[in-house]
Structures are given as structure tokens and as C-alpha cells.
């Protein structure tokens, strides 16, 4: 991490960029937050550890409105979102200096807490660049240890890959964290009966409090004003008054990002109600791959989105 910090400092001192976009340490060792570093002094609080799950690419939209260049730290999966934003003209390449940072998987604090670990005051061993696979968790109620690999976010268990799709330089190594098939959960749901599917999603979605965290964290949901906030479709919603609205919201949200979603998993990560929202997006990804050929949004800036292209012999609706 120190290497990364030093390099950012150097780049800022050399005036390659005017600020840096990274992560800042929080109160308990697990609540790192996204942060702009406007001066080298501020870099003291810079961290890069397993709890730096936040995908910074969406913050680049704001960064592009500022004077000068911004150093942005992107994990391999974040670069897909960056590309996608570039493709949609929401950010400008020349405004960013991309440091591709190595990643050994991002951590899920709720997974740690699910082990009955409470009163956490500090966590050691979460550094991204250490090869240690042990989290030492200090709590008010005593100390705990947990394997790093056992506390990964679901998204990291089916990681898209260690390659950065776009970068100016790369710092740090990335580790292989894949331990599950990306579409396994989807296939399981597909095999349920219609009513079972309905019950499953009703249960999950009934938890939705319409806080919009999923939408606001999502790099693909980058509309200046969401349809659910505007009156364009007479569809402005603030809260779920009926079980219909959350369905509408999540279906349409998934549809709007279909072919653009990079499966970065931020939606599920940020959901305060732990709704597995990626199940929607991944279903579309799976269908798109099956019907229109393998497609990975954000793997480059050129390829046309499957929903804005077609072929003469596409599958017929309802016939798959």
C-alpha cells in the first residue's frame, strides 16, 4: 500500500495530476470510504485494503467536471465500469490518470459479522498487497481470526478476471479468487417452478426500502435524472406503497442497465437490506450471452451493446 501511496504522491508532486481519487480509512478498520485527495498532505489517511470495495469509476463523472487531471485507483473489475462510462461519453479519458491496482478480493463485513463477531474495533491483515490470508479481528468482546478468503464478497468468488481493461500503470498483483460459477445461482432459480420463483423474489424484494442505494452506487445507472425520479413516464416513486413498485423498479433498473452492466456487484454490496440484486443483472447477462453471443460490457470501448444491435435470426420473445 505504501508503494501505491508514494506513487500517487509522486504523480501529484510532478503535476501529472491535480488530485487523486482513492479510499480513506474509517473508524473501525472496515469502513473505508471513497475520497478525493486534493493535496499530498491528505494522503496520510489513504488506505487500500480489502474493505475498499467501492467502485470509484462513477466518481469520475464528478472528477471530470473539475480542473485538471485526476488520478483514479481502479481494481480490475472497476475498469470495466470505467470503460463503459467512457463508451457512454460520461467521462473523458484525458481527465483521468488510471492506476490499475492489484486486488486479492474485496471483503464482506456482514460475512465477518455473521460469524458472531461483534464490537469490532480494528481489523488487521486486510491489506491488499500482503500475501497473508489471515484477518485478525479485535473486538470489545475478545479477538478473532478468520481466513481472508472466507470473508470475500460474493462478487469476488466469481471474479471476472485479474486483468485491468484500461490503465496508465499497474501497481500490485491480483490474486485468483474464483471459487464459484457466476451463473450457478441464476440456474438454480431458473429451475424453480413459477410459483417458487415468485415467492423467492417476493420475499427478497419485500425487504426493499427504496433507498436507491443500488441505483446510486451503480456505475451504469448514471442518468442525470432517473426515470423513477422524473415525471417522464408518470412513474416517479419514493417509496413502495405496494408490492408492485419494487418489482417495477428493479425490473426496469435491470433492463435499463442490460448490456451495460459490468456485473461489478456494487448493487448487492451496498444494499442495506442484503437483497441479492445482482441476481437480476446477471440473469440478463446470462441471457445475452446465450442468445446474442458472449458479451462483457466494458471489456472495451467499441463493441456495440447487445440491446442497440440485432441480427436477422435472433430468438423470438417467449421462445427461449
Amino acid at each position: 500500500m505504501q508503494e501505491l501511496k508514494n506513487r500517487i504522491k509522486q504523480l501529484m508532486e510532478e503535476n501529472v495530476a491535480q488530485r487523486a481519487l482513492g479510499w480513506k480509512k474509517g473508524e473501525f478498520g472496515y469502513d473505508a470510504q471513497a475520497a478525493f485527495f486534493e493535496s499530498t498532505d491528505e494522503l496520510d489517511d489513504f488506505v487500500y485494503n480489502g474493505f475498499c470495495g467501492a467502485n470509484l469509476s462513477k466518481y469520475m463523472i464528478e472528477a471530470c467536471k473539475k480542473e485538471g487531471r485526476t488520478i483514479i485507483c481502479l481494481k480490475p473489475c472497476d475498469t470495466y465500469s470505467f470503460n463503459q462510462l467512457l463508451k457512454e461519453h460520461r467521462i473523458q479519458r484525458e481527465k483521468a490518470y488510471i492506476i490499475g491496482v492489484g486486488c486479492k478480493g474485496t471483503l464482506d463485513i456482514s460475512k465477518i459479522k455473521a460469524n458472531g463477531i461483534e464490537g469490532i474495533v480494528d481489523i488487521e491483515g486486510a491489506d491488499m498487497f500482503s500475501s497473508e490470508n489471515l484477518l485478525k479481528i479485535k473486538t470489545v468482546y475478545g479477538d478473532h481470526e478468520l481466513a481472508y478468503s472466507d470473508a470475500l464478497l460474493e462478487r469476488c468468488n466469481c471474479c471476472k478476471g485479474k486483468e485491468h481493461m484500461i490503465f496508465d500503470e499497474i501497481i500490485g498483483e491480483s490474486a485468483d479468487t474464483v471459487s464459484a460459477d457466476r451463473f450457478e445461482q441464476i440456474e438454480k432459480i431458473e429451475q424453480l417452478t413459477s410459483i417458487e420463483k415468485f415467492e423467492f423474489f417476493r420475499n427478497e424484494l419485500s425487504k426493499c426500502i427504496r433507498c436507491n442505494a443500488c441505483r446510486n452506487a451503480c456505475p451504469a445507472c448514471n442518468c442525470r435524472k432517473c426515470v423513477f425520479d422524473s415525471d417522464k413516464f408518470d412513474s416517479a416513486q419514493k417509496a413502495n406503497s405496494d408490492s408492485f413498485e419494487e418489482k417495477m423498479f428493479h425490473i426496469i433498473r435491470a433492463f435499463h442497465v442490460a448490456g451495460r452492466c459490468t456485473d461489478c456487484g456494487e448493487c448487492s454490496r451496498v444494499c442495506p437490506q442484503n437483497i441479492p440484486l445482482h441476481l437480476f443483472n446477471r440473469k440478463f447477462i446470462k441471457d445475452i450471452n446465450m442468445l446474442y453471443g458472449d458479451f462483457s460490457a466494458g471489456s472495451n470501448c467499441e463493441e456495440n451493446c447487445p440491446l442497440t444491435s440485432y441480427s436477422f435470426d435472433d430468438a423470438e420473445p417467449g421462445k427461449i
Partner: protein
Amino acid sequence: MKKINLNKLKELFAYISEKSSLFLPIESANSINFGMYDEKAKVRLDVLKTSKSPKDLFFPQSETLYSCQSAKGKISIEPQALQNDEFVVFGMKNCDFAALEILDKVFLSEPVDTFYKARRDNATIVTLACARPSESCFCKAYGIDCAQGAGDVSAWIIGEYFYWCANTQKGVALLEKTAHLFEDADEADVESAKAQIRDIVAKMPLMSLDLKNWGKGKTAEKFDSPLWDELYKPCLACGTCTFVCPTCQCYDIKDYKAGEKVVRYRCWDSCMYSDFTMMAHGNNRTSQMQRFRQRFMHKLVYFPDNNDGVFSCTGCGRCVDKCPASLNIVKVIKAFDKEA
């Protein structure tokens, strides 16, 4: 002071729920929230904090105010019935109960919110002391003692037993109704448990949060601080903090076209949203910084200004746990402390 073995709680719940609706922390789809008890419910009294606060038992996320219909050129209005059945809320934490008292200041002062009042009047609240507070708790900063009971009935879980005692008339009534299930208990057991809890509280990192720089009359000092410009930046503008908060009380009123009729309902609003307090001319607060500032200024300055110095926060720490960008009121308070 009465007690009952934990394995007989189910009997207690069944008994209470026979007479009136019973709400308590229930696990469903991997999430724990206050819900209505039934035999299949997975009760989780062991969990410190529900995802959402129990405020929506009194101030639901959305509720119909009335519906109206036009027929032959005339509009008829059908009012929404008020809550008129008694119900019991079981296992509320002290911070959440304290939050209700804050909501009372808003909804029970003139003009009284009849929907809210009806629910408050009909509720019997059983609070449960926090056996194991968490690192995100900072209730003590607001003078709340999570070891001590509050509400109509105070309760503790100590070892194999559930203890409770009544604080109000409503509480006495509940205890009387269920007396046959309980045995007498020793106050001393409870006192030692309280002491234990207070010991833990002393060790929790945020409990000692200092609020001396906040409160009445701080508007001028805080409002134009350049710190806001830095603090808000990671904010995603989602409504998580406001929706999990037990004290946030803002709502919007909307109409829903339901076929032939129109339903007027209110629903929680969030000051984090760009269309919060949107009016015909536009919005008072045009930037996320302003909206972000509004939330914390309201909780820590404006509300105390209007309510004898009472903060509109009880330190439940849900925003600390849930904020997707790991921002929260504690970070704001500390940032200003550091500056000062």
C-alpha cells in the same frame, strides 16, 4: 420484577398475539426487521439492531391518507380509518424508544398527526436492554442508557431467563394479563446485568462521542464551514441513512391513480434526494452538498434549536452500519471536532 424461562417465550408470544397484534424482530429472507408475530415467525431477540428501525410501526414508510373518486361530476372522499386496535411492540431498544419520543415532538405537537397518534395510543411498548452493544452504537453520547429500561415495560435477557417490569399503566396491564406465565424475580439479577452492560458501553469506541460543539444556536458557526464541501463528496445521494434512521420524520404526499379512484398517500422522503422539497420554482437546495448539510444540520442544530436542545439523533448507529459509502453522522461530528 418478573421472569420467565427463555424457552417459554414462545408461549408468551402466542398468548399476547391471541389478544392483540404483536410486533417483534423477525428474520425473513436473511434480514431482521420488526414484523407481525405468527407461529411460523423466526423471532430474533438476540439480534441487537433490526435493519430498519421500528419507527414504521408508528410512522409507516407509506400510508394512505384518503381516497377519492369522481362520479357524475362530483368528487366523493373516502377517509382512511385510523388504527383502533391495540398492539404490542416487543423488544424495542432504548435508542429506538428515545427516537419515538423525538417523533412525538414532531407529530404530537399541534397540529397533531392523527394517524401517528392513533398508533401511539394503541401501542404497548416493551423495551429490551442491549446485552451486547456494538461498535457502531453511540447512544450514551445522547444520554441514553441502554442498560436501563424505557417504554411501557422494561425487559432484560439474563442467562436462561427473560425479566421484565412495568413502567406505565399500559405496562401494568400487559404484565397482569400475562402474569400466569411468569414467576417472581430478584431485582439484583437485573442490577448486576445492567452493570455489566454499562461496563461494555464504556469500552465502545463511539460511546464517548462529544457533542459540545453542537446544539442550539450553532447555525452561523457551522453552516458556511468549508468542511461540508469535503465531507459530502463520497455521498451517493441514496436514502439509506434516512430510511434506517429511527428519528427521520420527513415525508412526501403523493397521489396514486388507481383505476376509477385516486389514492392520496404519504411516504417517507429523504433530504438526500434531489427532489426533496421540490417546489414549482425548483429546489431550495440545488447541490448534494447542501442536501448533505441539511441532514446533519437538522439533526444536530436546527432540531435542538426548536426543541430545547434535544438532538434528533439517538445514536442507534444504523447509519454507521448501513451507509453504502461509509459516511455517517459520527464522521461528520468528528471532522468538525478535528477542525476545532
